């Protein structure tokens, strides 16, 4: 690169076509926003400039309708090494000089119209967020939601999404170790694909997404830039589905996991070499986003000559290059004078590296193409935290809550339902049944750190810190959130924490993916505000700050919004892997106890959904102080080696929890349970804050003592027996039968023609 690359005779700003308010509206901006842009610039923007504003001020990039709320969450403190949103992913100190980088992000809209590539690039995007921090990805999880599994379309989406995740993650070499899948009518047209990744990095080897140092060269590394993904962030991700959506398939990016693997190795080596000043991946809004965000954060500017960007197609315009969302690219700022080191590392890994610009000191993004200056913008004017708009939208409590909250369960005929039949129906429900068909398509073991994927949370050992491990999971029961956004959000955080506790881990931090309908709908916005309030309250109490994440609005079609779905990705730390725990029954004759409170609640339960096709009632109550007591006591029992298994109650209630403990036992261990009142509510109600444990006789006194000391209810309900599963002699099956129902339910539906 030489100085002539940036000497242009004509300093006027070139516009391919004339820009006016209509152009802005077509790009998804509002009239007000267009006026604001003209005011900030003091002139009419060029076509390239309005394109950059269009993506940078889109919901997806600017968080304009969510950021004011997000700022109320606990976003720093504890073990957090960077504040939420400050870098590409959250960073949590795990001691001994190491940190865990983790984040969850949505790829809902692309997956809805092109499930394979949509899901694949969702995985690719979140992995880049992790390794651009200098962290090597060690685990991936996915939280997926589809319409009910009774149509060819749902099958098509499910298969496509699972193949996409499997294709990308397996080839890249990250173990996919957990997540969740739900089937619910509200996701019929708008499936949710939330991808989470977890990485490990030495705290003195982390990288930052900040540009600095006037005169430092700016490079693009990785794949060349094509026409894929243009308008992905602004027009696809930031509005609802309508009849035109299918035409937007070209806005979905195409993934290349092999290119990503090379980019990973090169990026980590570049960061370790010390020549990198700043690095950011190119996902949504591509070059526009990476150049403006890095510049704004470093309070510098960049001169960028788009003629130098390696292109897949000739004759791409400045607009197209700036908005392309081609995958597997990074923008890096290199310490001037040490460029050759960076070039050599990229050569080693056979990935293209090309200087496209330099850092300037005046805070401006100067973009050039074909000898013209096509944009001259203050980087700060584009980004969140700078001039990007921030809105507080009107919120109104939704009408439907009057009906659901006052629903009287005595008006439906629950008593005539045969409990044994209901139990088998629940076991066969796709929301409860084994997800083996899905997870066996994911490589869950590559990198040989996977200690367990069987329990409530996946357990990963850390080779860097022998004896230490992490537990990770994703959780959200969106029915509870729909019925009570505040309580439901708290329940999501609580369940995620409970799940890592059941693995023997201490919950330390969360990442969140907030999936909602249209924020301009007052009822949707009320749900959003209530969810943030609940999540904030829960995270403060649990001392699990929010490390970052993603907001996905506009998840609706034909005016039907999805249930509010705030997915929580939880990180737990296991200081001593010898003290890990798992869900399955271990030994015959062990006694079985329920820890916690049973309120016999039906609201939002799978049981009511299956029998009455209703999602109604009050969401299960969540008392955070009780929940904290339950989790602390369970950890105490695990750490004193007093219990042999722990598994929480969730969908399907106590009966399903017990069934899962039996089915997952290696030795066909079942149980004999005697309940005082084996009612449908006691068996299938989904009261929160309950964990079922099993323990040897010699530890029972000690367990009782600890529960008494902590004031935690403890109820002995039965014992572990060989081969049979029975509850009050009303429900009686062989463990083999249970397993066969549980394992075959989803494959049978997938093989069925609808």
């Amino acid at each position: 690169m030489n100085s002539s690359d940036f000497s242009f005779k004509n300093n006027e700003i070139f516009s391919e076509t004339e820009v006016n308010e209509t152009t802005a509206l077509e790009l998804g901006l509002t009239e007000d926003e267009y006026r604001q842009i003209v005011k900030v610039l003091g002139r009419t923007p060029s076509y390239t400039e309005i394109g950059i504003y269009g993506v940078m001020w889109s919901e997806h990039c600017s968080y304009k309708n969510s950021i004011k709320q997000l700022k109320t969450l606990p976003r720093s403190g504890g073990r957090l090494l960077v504040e939420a949103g400050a870098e590409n992913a959250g960073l949590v100190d795990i001691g001994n000089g190491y940190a865990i980088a983790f984040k969850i992000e949505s790829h809902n809209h692309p997956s809805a119209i092109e499930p394979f590539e949509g899901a694949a690039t969702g995985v690719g995007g979140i992995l880049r967020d992790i390794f651009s921090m200098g962290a090597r990805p060690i685990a991936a999880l996915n939280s997926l939601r589809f319409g009910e599994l009774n149509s060819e379309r749902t099958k098509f989406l499910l298969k496509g999404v699972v193949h996409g995740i499997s294709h990308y993650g397996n080839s890249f070499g990250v173990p996919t170790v957990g997540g969740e899948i739900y089937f619910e009518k509200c996701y019929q047209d708008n499936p949710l694909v939330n991808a989470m990744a977890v990485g490990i990095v030495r705290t003195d080897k982390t990288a930052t997404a900040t540009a600095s140092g006037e005169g430092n060269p700016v490079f693009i590394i990785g794949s060349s830039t094509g026409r894929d993904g243009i308008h992905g962030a602004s027009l696809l991700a930031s509005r609802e589905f309508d009849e035109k959506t299918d035409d937007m398939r070209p806005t979905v990016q195409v993934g290349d996991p092999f290119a990503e693997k090379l980019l990973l190795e090169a990026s980590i080596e570049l960061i370790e070499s010390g020549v990198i000043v700043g690095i950011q991946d190119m996902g949504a809004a591509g070059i526009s986003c990476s150049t403006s965000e890095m510049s704004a954060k470093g309070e510098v500017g960049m001169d960028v000559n788009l003629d130098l960007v390696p292109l897949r197609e000739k004759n791409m315009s400045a607009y197209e290059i700036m908005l392309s969302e081609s995958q597997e690219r990074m923008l890096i700022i290199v310490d001037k004078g040490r460029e050759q080191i960076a070039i050599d590392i990229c050569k080693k890994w056979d990935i293209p590296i090309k200087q496209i610009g330099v850092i300037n000191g005046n805070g401006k993004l100067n973009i050039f193409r074909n000898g013209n200056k096509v944009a001259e913008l203050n980087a700060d004017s584009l980004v969140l935290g700078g001039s990007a708009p921030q809105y507080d939208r009107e919120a109104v409590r939704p009408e439907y809550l009057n009906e659901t909250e006052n629903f009287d369960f005595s008006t439906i005929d629950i008593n005539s339902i045969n409990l044994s039949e209901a139990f088998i129906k629940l076991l066969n429900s796709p929301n409860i049944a084994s997800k083996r068909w899905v997870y066996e398509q994911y490589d869950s073991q590559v990198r040989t750190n996977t200690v367990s994927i069987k329990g409530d949370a996946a357990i990963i050992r850390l080779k860097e810190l022998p004896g230490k491990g992490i537990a990770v999971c994703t959780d959200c029961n969106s029915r509870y959130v729909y019925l009570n956004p505040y309580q439901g959000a708290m329940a999501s955080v609580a369940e995620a924490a409970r799940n890592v506790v059941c693995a023997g881990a201490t919950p330390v931090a969360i990442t969140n993916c907030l999936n909602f309908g249209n924020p301009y709908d007052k009822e949707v916005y009320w749900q959003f505000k209530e969810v943030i309030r609940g999540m904030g309250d829960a995270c403060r109490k649990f001392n699990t700050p929010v490390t970052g994440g993603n907001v996905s609005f506009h998840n609706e079609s034909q005016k039907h919004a999805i249930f509010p779905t705030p997915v929580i990705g939880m990180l737990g730390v296991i200081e001593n892997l010898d003290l890990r725990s798992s869900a399955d029954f271990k030994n015959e004759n062990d006694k079985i106890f329920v820890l916690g409170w049973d309120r016999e609640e039906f609201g939002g339960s799978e049981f009511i959904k299956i029998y009455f096709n209703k999602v109604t009632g009050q969401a299960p109550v969540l008392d955070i102080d009780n929940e904290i007591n339950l989790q602390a006591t369970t950890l105490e029992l695990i750490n004193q080696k007093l219990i042999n298994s722990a598994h929480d109650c969730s969908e399907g209630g106590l009966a399903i929890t017990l069934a899962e403990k039996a089915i997952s036992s290696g030795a066909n261990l079942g149980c004999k349970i005697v309940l005082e009142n084996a009612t449908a509510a006691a068996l299938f109600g989904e009261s929160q804050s309950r964990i079922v444990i099993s323990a040897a006789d010699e530890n029972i006194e000690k367990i009782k003592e600890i529960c008494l000391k902590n004031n935690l209810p403890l109820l002995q309900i039965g014992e572990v027996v060989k081969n049979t599963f029975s509850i009050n002699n009303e429900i009686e099956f062989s463990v083999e039968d249970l397993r066969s129902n549980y394992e075959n339910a989803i494959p049978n539906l997938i093989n069925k023609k609808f």
Partner: protein
Amino acid sequence: MKFGVVVFPGSNCDHDAFYAIGTNAGANVQYLWHKDSTIPSDIDCIILPGGFSYGDYLRCGSIAKYSPIMREVINFASKGGYLMGICNGFQILTESGLLPGALLRNTSLNFACKDVFLRIENNDTFYTNNFSRSDLIRIPIAHGEGNYFAEPETIKELEDNDQVIFRYCSPEGIISDEYNPNGSINNIAGIVNKNKNILGLMPHPERYSDELLGCNDGIAIFLSLIRRFN
């Protein structure tokens, strides 16, 4: 004795093999870079690890045979050096003509990552001398193209010469279709060449070489080799 683990750009089980051999089995091990055109003289056994060598968008392993290191690997093996291909490594061995047959797509057409049981069909090799014949081991598979295929005469030759080393089986050791995870002919999971110095297998012994990961049945394969040399 010293192992070398080849690193192709898309290898992703290279670290795992390195760790299983170096840390779990306690042997000397070093990486061999795919662009290298020499192999250090002190290497006794080369591992072609699992992964997606060059992306494998064409047939798995078909590009790898053209890499500089593979010329040397072929040389090394033709002189009797020990060469073991795991998963993608097995695919590279068949693509390179070092082992007969081919690995087709799984009959399910899906990638499959799960535990399988293997029956030791021949313990008279340097890879299996720590086992008894008919021993059963639990090892995971993780592949989309592991369906072993060869012409009938090749299969007959493999069987007649005792070149089939591992077969997929039930937990009790029964060989049947029900326990064939990918459609491989005769439930073949791993074979050696006639000289028995080259082993290819789809399952991943390096993944179960550590008690912490739930099973260490795989380590015996590495220990067999180490015993041969020490």
